[in-house]
């Protein structure tokens, strides 16, 4: 066990984590050829968005300069702001972390947030400046930032080029020397942490585990601590990077097991696996159930696809137990699901994947946070959708979730970032100046403001230089009202939204204006209204269409005509009928795009 090292790489997107991991795998002959695709993150979509959601672990045999054989376990950590709990669980599985910083970019907010998590978890940090082969690097700034922001002395910092391999052998040696070996006895009862899981249609849920004490092998009876459910182990093994079936996993080791666990809901990241023989083995601290922060309605465009959507969500949850869903029905959209996500990005990616991998045409409604409503009774309600709001006269007051955000931004963009924060109801808590070039802005925001286009806006006002991390702080009362949208006199529940009283009407007007452009002209006039309670705050009318007809018959080519009509009809199928009005899918998300 003293020759095992468990570590992860903390890095901002594009700072070179995957490239460095590949270089390490090549140097240690785990992979032989220079593969074009980085080995750690496998999902195309994530590559497109530049993030890794699913952590995995690779076992790396390493023959060190001191003549000894080591086993390095490289555990992947998600890099995005929505996944801090998942990150904390991956960190928990390690004794050390490589803090990787792009020499041309410097330290970013999420990296700092994750480094703090690592320090809090007692990990040894190996600071590494990457991409030193580049010419436009700012080494001194990086040193200064590491020192000022994280208290890391310059002499501890390694310099590498993941691309060329420069400094990587020294990094491997540093991993051996600096990171302590895992503790824990193989003779104690089993205690292991689930830091990730995957799903395999033959073998069921496949938890990725780190063993802290005891050992596990085929035939063992194990128990999931949070539920008390017992399973028999079918197989244990590890990834290198393909799965390798092993005899046994012992204290300090990292790998996976299978135990014919069919319900994804049984396996939660952060849960502890113990031996069924020792049910009183304590849980590894820090476990919590996934806590969705953002909810939206998901509806099939074609109502017959409801079953397909159900199956897709079920399957999806097998690989990502952090999404939650329950049945929902909407007057406008029919039957669908209310789905909860860890954050906006998690939502975007999940929706994309549902559409792509399951070939589903989906309508997603405006994302909503979970509001706390104190009724006049009084009682406390947690409400994840505007349509579930009680009648106004039953509401005493509404509270909304607040987050504390750390925004790191180069000096020259501080102004626009602060303006953006103002427009998003941010309140400035503090400012730090780590290195004379960048500013750390600490803001409290209503989460609702962050999920409606904040990231994209922040990136655009800072030309991509600002980065942000956040923590949930709790609930605060807000002067909020529900705005209803009426299309031709019919309330469209899926378009209702919650807004602060002072901006509710302005937003209503903007939304109505946007909808007027999105909803096609019909054969009759379509009125659009925004209303707070009974009071109409905005109105526009879509005038009837005057021309929509196929003209000349092309030498009697009826087939072509019919096909044109059928194509047009296909287009219509993508719209939702509300009363007699056809509403295109984009309309349901248009509140997000008001500022464009």
């Amino acid at each position, binding site marked *: 066990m003293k020759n095992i090292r468990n570590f992860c790489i903390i890095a901002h997107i594009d700072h070179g984590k995957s490239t460095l991991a590949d270089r390490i795998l090549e140097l240690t002959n785990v992979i032989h050829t220079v593969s074009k695709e980085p080995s750690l993150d496998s999902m195309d979509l994530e590559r497109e968005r530049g993030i890794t959601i699913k952590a995995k672990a690779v076992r790396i045999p390493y023959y060190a300069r001191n003549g000894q054989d080591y086993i390095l376990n490289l555990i992947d950590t998600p890099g995005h702001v929505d996944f801090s709990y998942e990150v904390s669980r991956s960190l928990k599985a390690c004794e050390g972390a490589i803090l990787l910083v792009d020499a041309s970019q410097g330290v970013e907010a999420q990296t700092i947030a994750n480094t703090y998590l690592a320090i809090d978890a007692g990990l040894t940090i190996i600071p590494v400046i990457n991409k030193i082969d580049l010419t436009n690097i700012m080494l001194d700034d990086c040193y200064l930032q590491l020192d000022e922001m994280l208290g890391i002395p310059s002499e501890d910092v390694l310099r590498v080029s993941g691309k060329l391999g420069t400094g990587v052998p020294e990094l491997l040696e540093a991993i051996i020397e600096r990171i302590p070996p895992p503790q824990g006895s193989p003779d104690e009862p089993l205690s292991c942490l689930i830091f990730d899981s995957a799903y395999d249609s033959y073998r069921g849920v496949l938890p990725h585990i780190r063993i802290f004490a005891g050992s596990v092998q085929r035939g063992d009876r194990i128990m999931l601590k949070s539920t008390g459910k017992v399973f028999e182990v079918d197989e244990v093994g590890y990834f290198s990077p393909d799965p390798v079936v092993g005899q046994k996993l012992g204290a300090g080791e990292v790998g996976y097991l299978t135990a014919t666990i069919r319900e994804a809901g049984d396996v939660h990241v952060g849960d502890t696996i113990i031996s069924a023989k020792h049910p009183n083995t304590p849980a590894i601290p820090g476990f919590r159930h996934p806590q969705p922060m953002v909810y939206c309605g998901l509806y099939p465009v074609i109502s017959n696809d409801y079953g397909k959507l159900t199956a897709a969500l079920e399957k999806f949850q097998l690989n990502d137990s952090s999404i939650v869903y329950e049945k929902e029905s909407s007057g406008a959209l029919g039957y669908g699901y209310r789905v909860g996500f860890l954050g906006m990005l998690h939502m975007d990616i999940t929706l994309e994947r549902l559409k792509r991998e399951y070939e589903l045409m989906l309508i997603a409604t405006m994302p909503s946070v979970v509001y706390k409503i104190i009724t006049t009774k009084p009682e406390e309600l947690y409400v994840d959708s505007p349509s579930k709001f009680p009648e106004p006269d039953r509401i005493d007051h509404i509270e909304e979730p607040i987050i504390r955000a750390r925004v790191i931004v180069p000096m020259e963009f501080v102004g626009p970032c602060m303006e953006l924060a103002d427009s998003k109801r941010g309140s400035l808590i503090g400012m730090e100046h780590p290195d004379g070039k960048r500013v750390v802005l600490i803001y409290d925001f209503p989460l609702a403001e962050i999920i409606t286009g904040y990231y994209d806006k922040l990136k655009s006002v800072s030309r991509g230089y600002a980065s942000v991390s956040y923590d949930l702080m709790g609930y605060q009362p807000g002067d909020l009202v529900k705005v209803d949208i009426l299309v031709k006199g019919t309330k469209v529940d899926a378009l209702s939204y919650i807004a602060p009283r002072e901006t509710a009407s302005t937003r209503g007007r903007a939304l109505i204006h946007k909808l007027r452009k999105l909803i096609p002209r019909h*054969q009759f006039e379509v009125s659009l209204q925004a209303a707070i309670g009974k009071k109409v705050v905005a109105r526009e009318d879509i005038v*009837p*269409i*005057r*021309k*929509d*007809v*196929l*003209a*000349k*018959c*092309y*030498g*009697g*080519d*009826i*087939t*072509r005509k*019919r096909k044109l*009509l*059928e194509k*047009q*009809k296909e287009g*219509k199928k993508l719209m939702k009928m509300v009363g*007699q009005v056809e509403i295109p899918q984009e309309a349901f998300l248009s509140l997000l795009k008001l500022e464009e």
Partner: protein
Amino acid sequence: MRGLYIHIPFCVRKCAYCDFYSLAGRQHLVPAYVDALLTEARSYAGLSFQTLYLGGGTPSLLGDRGLRRLLNGLHQVFDLSGLAEATIEVNPDSATTALLETARQKGFNRVSIGVQSLRDGELNSVGRVHNAAQALAALAQAKATGFASISADVIIGLPEQNWGTLHSTIGKLVHMGVQHISAYCLSLEPGTPLAADPPANLPDDDAQAELFHRACSFLESEGFVHYEISNFARPDHECQHNLNYWRGGAYLGLGPAAASHLNGRRFKDRDDLETYLRNPTGLVEDVEILNAEAKAAEEAMLRLRLLREGIDVRALATRFGRANTQGLTRRLREMAMRGCLVRDSTRYVLPADRVLVSNSAFAEVLGD
């Protein structure tokens, strides 16, 4: 009733809006093309037709010799003794006296003139090769030649067109004595120069609709019947050949891009002149055979264009079988209830104010 359509894919120059299959500057191929048409015709030898329509392209580019040779050939291959209507499309710049007289001699009793507008500016703006004076001359000549029916094509929505200019064009046509007017709304067809670079002064859809509705009222007040979405005729001057299309009738189309409907089968010749010249019978493609239910729905969709006749569900049920028209009948009934159609016992027609917004009705009649 069976119609014969012959496509003449030649034009002096391509108009800016045109996506019909026709090629500019290939008139030297006319003799070879007539041979090819006759070769294709022979593969259907012995068929009889009640209407003939020579369309294009620009059929007047056949010239009097080409036209004579074509008609002589057709008479040998087909039984044209029962021909009730024979139309030739001509463009003003090539509608020579010799051509019109030859047409008359060869049995054409109807001529359709590509007038489009009687304003030189409007004609110019979309690249038409003729001017207003030529159009008027062609009309006069057609009249003098003694055609029983003269039709003029008019485009609605030309750049800078307004009711004043459109009114003057249509007014003159009526005054000149045409018995039939086809009024098409200009549309930006993908791939055409007009769509690639639409002029700023193009009337938008609303303006087009306005022009169209005014043209309708005017023509109706002049005694024309609005019998099909784009077509107006004095009583008994409706185009029989086109009516047959909308009534789901049979027709044979010869030439590249010509479509046919024979024995319930729809097919067309690929739009490829060069190959056609080499192998006139080898271009048949897109063969489509619909089941009776779809066929009934298709015919209903077509008949909806006939603003007076419309759809008679009883007649359809008799022809296609009640089982195959049940769904259709239900759709029609529902549409009538919503005001999308007007019902008169078993007959359904488009409401007059929905003529220009009929696509959704067509689509709905077609069903899923």
